[in-house]
């Protein structure tokens, strides 16, 4: 269940970036999640809801953008989608992973007008 560690880092990063931009509540977040990355979206959403509770990220809608796998064939250099066990047109499996391993916080939205709740450390 490493989704909890991932969610905690998302909340921490969002608060840090919000603070660098004048503070306020975090009211939106967009995450790039590669199809090969071993993070389960529903589990992540659940963990995100739990760890954001009581912070300025609480209630923030989480957009998860899945990034499809892109492979480059080691034999012929052709690029393709699919997974590692699917064969390239030239008959070769596997390949160099060009995309699909993302676990990246793309953007956050901050509400500049909402006052920071008293005593909120998060």
């Amino acid at each position, binding site marked *: *269940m490493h989704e909890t560690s991932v969610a905690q880092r998302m909340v921490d990063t969002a608060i840090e970036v919000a603070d660098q931009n004048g503070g306020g509540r975090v009211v939106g977040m967009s*995450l790039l999640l590669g199809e090969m*990355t071993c993070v389960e979206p529903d589990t992540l959403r659940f963990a995100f809801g739990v760890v954001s509770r009581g912070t300025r990220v609480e209630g923030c809608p989480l957009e998860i953008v899945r990034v499809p796998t892109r492979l480059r064939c080691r034999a012929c250099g052709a690029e393709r989608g699919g997974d590692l066990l699917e064969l390239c047109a030239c008959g070769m499996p*596997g390949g160099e992973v060009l995309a699909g391993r993302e*676990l990246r916080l793309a953007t956050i*939205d901050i509400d*500049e007008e909402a006052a920071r709740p008293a005593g909120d450390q998060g």
Partner: protein
Amino acid sequence: MSKEIEVARDVLQDNSQNAEANRRRFCREGVYVVNLMSGPGAGKTTLLESTAEALGQRLRMAVITGDIATTRDADRIGRHGVPTVQINTGGACHIEAHQIARAADDLKAGKLDLLIIENVGNLVCPAEFDLGEHDKVMMLSCTEGHDKPGKYPLMFKESRALILNKMDLQPHTNFDVQAALADARAINPTIEVIKMSAWKGEGLQAWFDWLLARIAATRRA
């Protein structure tokens, strides 16, 4: 009014930075570090007991072992005279790089030749957390089924070597060695394969030789 701010930051960036710091340190200190991964019950601890027994006198060796709870693995390996630190992850399914830094301090890693990290038994999560090791090694036992490399490709993709364990049991199972290796090599064409029965003590010399060769190669680099 809300405004959108571009973050563009890897969520596990802190772990990657800690792992890079570990890697620089291990290279500077001249200790070869291997991250041994598998599902639970594949035989990692049994292999490390034999490894400690065989190499513990010849080289300066230590083990970091990760489990959700108990110090049973550290107790088992430590009995063979090799310094061992247990990391209890408290429910987490993997070890993180900052935990390795702390354990390496405890073990005085700079005075070692070989440091083996026994990761938490899990086929999914450890793949996402770089620890700063030189090599990842995957262990798969015959009783787990030959379909595992294809079903959990990431950890096999990132490993330098694959240990096939419990080969003594293979005749009693439907484990298809060729099928397992075909998938593993499709995912990772350069993966080196070592077959053994850690419990019976068969095939262990190839593993010891592999470790000694990797220690030597890392020193030359």
